[in-house]
């Protein structure tokens, strides 16, 4: 998993005593070069991607500069482009998704890895992997036909009735909007969190559990205080993966978010995300400034993902220094 930090011992010194040619003949060196090239291609693709996005968005970068991030009018007819509502929508929907999916996903993973009988755990894992492979348009349809009507008729009126004093739950209930998009995203990312977290929890060495139990800990205490902290790094990894998917999800979001560039404190309000507007408007974008503004949105999404991933990594470093967990997978 690319998102977990693992230090691989360098292969160099171990084979250092033999000559380059003999290593070449035995295949070690060839394997090393080839795998290095594969690893380097990841960096190369990233660099090329940024370069292309940067080059392709020259016009709006010069014309709007920093205002691109600050203004909220998106008008292809009068050539005014501001990304703020899209950035806002992307962040809000991803946040809602993670707030819902993280406790659910990790809870389920703990049950499957620690508490459930192995047979139940393996059977459920099969279904979870199946869910992770469902195309996002299917989740979108599920959203449109089931979640949106449910939201409009039951959930939103109920939230309004109980928590309506909060600015989060105000305004007309259309069914579509930030909250619905966040819920659909949560459903989509939960399988990732469960699947990866379960694997990580299962790989925690047996003696860790036994040591805790022998000290008189209950089963839950050993799970919650020993196993989960031990696996923390990997669990964070699963959350990054979920975050990345939530930020970049296109099809399912555009089907339930309402596709209206608005910034509103209410989660009931229709909104728009970066990925959704690119998918919606790219094919019919005529005019260079319009097209390049969409490309700049792609660059913004890239930067956003980069920053959030960086912050999350810092969070791991900070927590693993404070706590005792060795956060390795």
């Amino acid at each position: 998993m690319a998102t977990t930090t693992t230090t691989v011992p360098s292969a160099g010194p171990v084979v250092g005593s033999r000559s380059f040619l003999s290593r070449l003949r035995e295949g070690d060196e060839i394997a090393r070069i080839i795998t290095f090239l594969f690893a380097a291609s990841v960096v190369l693709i990233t660099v090329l991607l940024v370069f292309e996005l940067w080059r392709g968005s020259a016009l709006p970068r010069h014309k709007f500069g920093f205002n691109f991030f600050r203004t909220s009018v998106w008008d292809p007819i009068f050539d005014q482009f501001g990304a703020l509502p899209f950035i806002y929508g992307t962040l809000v929907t991803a946040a809602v998704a993670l707030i819902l999916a993280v406790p659910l996903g990790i809870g389920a993973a703990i049950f499957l890895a620690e508490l459930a009988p192995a047979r139940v755990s393996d059977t459920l894992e099969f279904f979870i992997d199946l869910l992770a492979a469902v195309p996002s348009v299917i989740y979108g349809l599920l959203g449109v036909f089931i979640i949106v009507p449910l939201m409009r008729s039951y959930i939103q009126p109920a939230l309004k009735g109980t928590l309506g004093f909060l600015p989060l739950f105000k305004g007309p209930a259309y069914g579509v909007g930030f909250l619905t998009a966040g819920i659909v995203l949560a459903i989509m990312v939960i399988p990732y969190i469960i699947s990866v977290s379960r694997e990580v929890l299962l790989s925690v060495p047996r003696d860790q559990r036994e040591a805790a139990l022998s000290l008189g800990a209950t089963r839950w205490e050993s799970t919650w205080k020993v196993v989960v902290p031990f696996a923390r790094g990997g669990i964070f990894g699963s959350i990054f993966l979920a975050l990345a998917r939530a930020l970049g999800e296109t099809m399912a979001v555009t089907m339930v978010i309402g596709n209206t560039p608005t910034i509103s404190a209410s989660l009931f309000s229709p909104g728009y995300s970066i990925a959704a507007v690119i998918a919606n408007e790219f094919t019919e974008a005529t005019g260079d400034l319009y097209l390049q503004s969409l490309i700049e949105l792609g660059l913004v999404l890239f930067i956003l993902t980069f920053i959030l991933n960086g912050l999350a990594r810092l969070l791991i470093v900070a927590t693993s220094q404070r706590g005792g967990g060795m956060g390795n997978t």
Partner: protein
Amino acid sequence: MKRIAGMLVVVLALAGILWADSALSITGAGATFPYPMYSKWFDEYHKKNTNIEINYQSIGSGGGIKQVTEGTVDFGASDGPMNDDQLKAFQDKHGFGILHFPTVLGADVPAYNIPGITVELNFTQDAISGIFLGKITKWNDPAIAGPNKGVRLPADDIVVVHRSDGSGTTYIWTDYLSKISDEWKNKVGKGTSVNWPVGLGGKGNEGVAGTIKNTPDSFGYVELIYAIQNKMPYGLVKNSSGAFIKADLASVTAAAAGAAKNMPDDFRVSITDAPGKTAYPISSFTWLLVPAKFSEAAKRDALKGFVKWMLSDGQNYTEALSYAKLPKEVVAKELKALNNVQ
């Protein structure tokens, strides 16, 4: 491993031979709205002329204009005519112009979902523009209720639904709104996507239709073919002669016939709000974009042959797919214009 590699080489070589031996291949790209029609036409034409194969990628009108301008395809297709800047860009790059050929007609219909109301509503120009500008917000507004005497319209808020993806359907709708409302023209304008004053966005005709179906008191627009094929109810629209017209293939063709008298030679004409007693006002052509000069005579002749066939026999295939066909006047004019392709 070696055997697989060997087989791969043989297969590739065979594919190469077949490729080199294949028929004259013409490529086009553009609008998605007429794609079902075009693919039927290209298929039928290939059956009659097995040596000619036309490949069409429905990547959207914007992409079609871009690709034909860059010369990566032999012809383009668009739901909106190219504007003067785009024509100039083509002329500057190639040294010759590009011609528009109308192929079939499309139309947008107003669709709505008001609980308890099953009759077909009548919409005036002011009602449609008022709703989309966000000035008419209740269903029982006099502008809507006026021409719908006897229908008990509720005092509920109207939920406006529009397309979120760039599309020819939106182009037709906003082109119509720009013609009937100066405020719309100055504030919003026309295009494949615009800065909507109000409303929710649905992706594709199915997205808009789904949102309307799911949302009480909603109002939006969908492509006529989509409405016909999915048996969606839709309203009537008042045309420039003052009659309320229901969109169907005949009333859309009538709009084209009404506009045919004043058809410019380059066919770049909008037929929304067209004159004619039976003309449906929210109609439009969709166009093939054909460069005026070809370097390969074989390609030129093949494409001209296709356009000629499309304008005559090809038009017989349109109604089975729910596209409105071109009026005779326009066909005659196009056949004449075809001579300008050299």
